[in-house]
């Protein structure tokens, strides 16, 4: 029983990271109706930035904050420079841009930092946090950081005029312009936020999976699964989906199918959701009149 509980808790820890990344995917999906395949590589690149800052001798939390800020700006720049020009292009063209972004960021990281696997420090102490023994301090810390990020985003989107304007711009751009919202900037801001959230996810997962240019490929798959389970257009669903996928992956990996087949859990979830409930558990069902 203790083993089971341990696996569930560890699942929640990684699930929080999937939840953050899934939320970043949903944020961009809501604004553009497209899935940003480069989301994982953006997070990976941010993590390397953090590593550089730490190597340069910066204290952890300062490097953490600076990385989040830089990622935010980079996210905005990516939207302005790369995504903006294909705004009205066919879906396939935009997807190609996203995949190109994925490949470019991956190669760039490999070129700058080499493909050698690097350890990435955890900011949390070695002794158990808050007297909790069934979770490693890093796992518990990562859960707390994730929950803080999610809460901050919730408050931002729910209670600030700017958050409301971003939701309005994503939902109904034409109407948003008519109340004076600069829709283009709201989209850019969305990319910035998604990049910042991804950066936190990257820094929280790096101590577990180690730092290398391909560190996020598997995690992005779980995030896709999480976003789909929750419903690709539901931020709340993405978060729940993230934790659910994390727990499921860990429990199945430990007791049923073994660690080697863990990643296929994500694929099975993706295919299963698409077959049985394409709108996810919290997503809107789209009905069109013909």
């Amino acid at each position: 029983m203790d083993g089971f509980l341990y696996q569930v808790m560890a699942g929640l820890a990684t699930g929080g990271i999937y939840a953050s990344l899934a939320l970043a995917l949903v944020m961009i999906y809501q604004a553009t109706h497209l899935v940003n395949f480069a989301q994982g590589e953006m997070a990976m690149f941010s993590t390397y930035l953090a590593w550089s800052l730490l190597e340069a001798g910066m204290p952890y939390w300062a490097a953490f904050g600076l990385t989040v800020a830089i990622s935010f700006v980079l996210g905005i720049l990516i939207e302005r420079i790369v995504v903006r020009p294909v705004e009205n292009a066919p879906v396939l063209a935009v997807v190609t841009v996203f995949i190109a972004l994925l490949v470019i960021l991956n190669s760039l990281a490999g070129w700058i930092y080499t493909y050698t696997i690097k350890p990435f420090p955890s900011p949390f102490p070695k002794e158990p946090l808050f007297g909790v023994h069934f979770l490693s301090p890093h796992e518990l810390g990562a859960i707390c950081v994730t929950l803080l990020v999610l809460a901050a985003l919730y408050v931002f989107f729910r209670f600030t005029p700017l958050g409301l304007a971003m939701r309005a711009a994503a939902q109904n751009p034409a109407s948003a312009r008519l109340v004076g919202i600069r829709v283009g900037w709201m989209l850019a801001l969305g990319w910035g936020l998604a990049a910042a959230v991804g950066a936190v996810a990257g820094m929280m997962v790096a101590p577990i999976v180690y730092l290398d240019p391909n560190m996020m490929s598997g995690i992005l798959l779980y995030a896709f699964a999480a976003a789909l389970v929750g419903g690709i257009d539901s931020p709340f669903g993405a978060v729940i989906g993230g934790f659910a996928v994390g727990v499921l992956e860990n429990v199945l990996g430990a007791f049923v199918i073994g660690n080697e087949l863990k990643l296929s859990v994500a694929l099975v979830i993706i295919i299963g959701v698409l077959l049985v409930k394409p709108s996810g558990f919290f997503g809107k069902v789209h009905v069109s009149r013909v």
Partner: protein
Amino acid sequence: MLLETKNLRAGYGQTRVLHGLDFAIEKGSITALLGANGAGKTTTLRALCAMVKTQGEIRFDGASLAGLATEDIVRRGVAHVPDGRGTFLHLSTEENLRLGAYTRRERRTVEADVERMFGYFPRLRERRAQQAGTLSGGEQQMLAVSRALMLAPKLMLLDEPSFGLAPLLVRELFAILREIRSREGVSMLLVEQNAAMALDLADRAYLIETGRVVLQGTSQELKNNDSVRRSYLGY
């Protein structure tokens, strides 16, 4: 003059819809644009907000609107109640209202204005926290008018506010528009299919046919015009 257009032309892609429209709106007045389906009424409103490609001159409040983006024109005080109502379907009624005041900086008066809108349209108060998509057509129209008023606009563009509403609701809505004009002094440009209602409310009116002004005058003059009477008032 609050708004003046000269040789206003606009269209969609290769198709020209407005072929040189000249009209003016006096400060504090209600002006009606009448015309059959496809005459270019909605396009005129869209042209004023730069929602379509436009040529020609538009002067608003003493300055040219040429080259400005929709959101900048809105920031100068032009509120548009669009065709189809433009409701933010997944946001609450109150959030829809607050969005109307997005460009205003003084947060405190916004609170008071939300209450003032609920005063005009008590039904919206009952629906305050409800998702706007679940509102009836009439309620969404009230919401669209209130959202536009939340901007504290100088000019309000109303695109067929009577569309899809029951006759009783239309009368109620027009009575409130009249009240809003006298209380807030906001000028209105009203596009309507329901010519009788529009002429009752408006001070002046323009009749457009295939993208050109064919007749203009005070509402009374248009009511007395034989061809308007036969074609648009139906008696």
